[in-house]
């Protein structure tokens, strides 16, 4: 139990740090976004008071107040769920996030589950067949893709599968241009699925590699354990050994990574969402940056941080449920 408390405390501290880093970048460093925004309105010919009142609408604190009060107000705002106001999109940040999160969660969670499952299966398989040609090919593929920015494969896939072969819609975005998103009907759903296929494929193909490599090395180290040899010596059936003795132990350390990835997921697949014009968190983060819409940027960053920290906590709890060695400590 103390272990869980410890992890929770660490998570809270991390969140606190994330918020502080954000505030630091947002307000404290010279030439910070809030000053920039004020200067921007001043350059448009507004009076200082008018500029200030406009900025005041966007951020949850008073830029003229002492720094520590701004910080406290910012913290309060974050706790209330008030992340400010986006001037480029003319909407509260929370509403934008509310629109973006489902798209990210939808596309990335499917991708994550597929790539995780494929990854552990292939990783385990090549661990058994290590040294074979198939192992060499898959391992090579895996180590290359982990170093490859995701949009690079995306370009090839769009170019070949969508544009050359026409198997997938050519137009980018979450659904077709003629679909009415306000009606949740079959047409909308099929269009969404068709448009999600390529981003998901890209994500799976690029992120599977690291699962494969992790599972391979994990499996190899488990295969070297005495209890596997002992199970063979006891005449257990291969299937039982592969699942309960090798599989369960090999996949354990990966579960933590999986849960962490669930958290990271809220950051969206930055490059993929931008390439496919997919309106998730990663896309809005980039829009915010290119439009210098800092409330939007901080909002996206914070939600990602929160999710990652929670994902981490979840990972630790999950691990303690799955591994009896931790549970009893």
């Amino acid at each position, binding site marked *: 139990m103390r272990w869980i408390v410890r992890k929770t405390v660490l998570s809270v501290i991390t969140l606190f740090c994330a918020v502080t880093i954000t505030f630091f970048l947002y307000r404290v460093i010279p030439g910070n976004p809030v000053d920039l925004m004020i200067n921007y309105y001043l350059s448009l010919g507004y009076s200082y008071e008018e500029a200030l009142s406009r900025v005041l609408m966007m951020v949850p604190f008073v830029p003229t107040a002492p720094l520590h009060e701004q910080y406290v107000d910012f913290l309060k705002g974050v706790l209330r769920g008030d992340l400010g106001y986006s001037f480029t999109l003319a909407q509260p940040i929370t509403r934008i996030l509310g629109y973006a999160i489902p798209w990210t969660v939808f596309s990335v969670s499917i991708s994550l589950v597929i790539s995780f499952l494929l990854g552990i299966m292939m990783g385990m398989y090549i661990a058994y067949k290590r040294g074979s040609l198939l192992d060499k090919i898959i391992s090579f593929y895996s180590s290359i893709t982990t170093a490859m920015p995701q949009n690079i494969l995306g370009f090839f896939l769009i170019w070949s599968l969508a544009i050359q072969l026409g198997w997938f819609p050519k137009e980018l975005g979450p659904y077709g241009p003629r679909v009415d998103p306000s009606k949740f009907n079959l047409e909308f759903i099929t269009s969404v699925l068709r448009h999600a296929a390529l981003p998901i494929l890209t994500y799976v193909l690029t992120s599977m590699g690291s699962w494969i490599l992790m599972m391979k090395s994990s499996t190899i180290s488990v295969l070297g354990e005495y209890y596997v040899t002992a199970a063979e010596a006891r005449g257990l059936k291969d299937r039982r050994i592969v699942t309960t003795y090798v599989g369960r132990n090999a996949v*354990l350390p990966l579960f933590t990574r999986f849960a962490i990835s669930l958290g990271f997921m809220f950051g969206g697949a930055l490059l993929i969402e931008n390439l496919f014009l997919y309106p998730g968190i990663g896309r809005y983060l980039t829009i915010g940056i290119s439009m210098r819409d800092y409330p939007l940027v901080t909002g996206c960053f914070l939600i990602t941080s929160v999710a990652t920290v929670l994902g981490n906590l979840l990972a630790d709890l999950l691990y303690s449920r799955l591994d009896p060695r931790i549970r009893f400590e």
Partner: protein
Amino acid sequence: MSPAAGKNRDVLLSIRGLTVEFRVPRGILRAVDNLDLDVYDDEVLGLVGESGCGKSVLAHTILRIVDPNGRIAGGKIMFKGKDILSMSKEELRRFRWKEIAIVFQGAFNSFNPVIRVFEHMLDTTYAHDEKASKEEIVKRSKELMRMVRLDPDAVLERYPHELSGGMKQRAVAAMAMLLDPKLLILDEPFSALDVLTQKFFMKTLVDIRRETRKSMIFITHDLAQVAEIADRVAVMYGGVIVEAAGVEDIFYRPRHPYTRALLKAVPSIVGSIDELKPLPGPLPDPVNPPPGCEFHPRCPHRIEICSKIRPELEQVDDVSLVACHRWRELN
């Protein structure tokens, strides 16, 4: 004391010309080199040798457990008239544990950390008998735990990491008897135990042996343990058996120069130390073994032939065998 070990007994396990090789960065390592050995019904065979002599590899090979970089290069292992090395995969699976069980050197690591001790018992029984009843397995497991002086309730429902090293080791030994195998191989089974627990465990083994009439191969580097438990002793050096004889012959009338030298090199808590003498020279390099008799570079009695021809294992009497060109004259 042991009866004239091996005499007029049935051979249970018979190894002929066994060779096991490993690929290592430096070349081919021949861990077991054209080895012959018999194990009789109802006997404890002590297999002694220093590290790297191939005794563990031999034990593993009997159950055909060989590292991926290793290979059984030749020979036969006959068990009750059947060659283990030519069994099919499924035959081998059914054979393991049912006929021969093994307690590994790292026995305390033999449990899958994510399942309870009892699940290991279930797994093992079901692998050989799908229709086994759970109550039967519970009953049998409890009985075995008591046999190795463990409290069944405190062990069976626990996860392996909750047990101490000594408890795990004894639980593994109990598991080895689950299917009542004919032959039990114990590979340095005491490595994690303190001296006091060792003593009790050894007595337990002797009791089990007396009750069940099982055969055991007891592998160790410790001559004293062999003296305590074995009926017959096989001494291994450089991948071969150099001498095999009844335990008293080995300790009181050793024939092979290596056996003699080893006995003199091991200090005890009794007796004079004046006769103790270190062996000269290093152990043979298994990748580049010396020609002829493996022991000749360290042997005080070597003559020319020793460096040229490898001595065969010769029958001395009913039970004793020795592989030395000069054993007759040296006695």
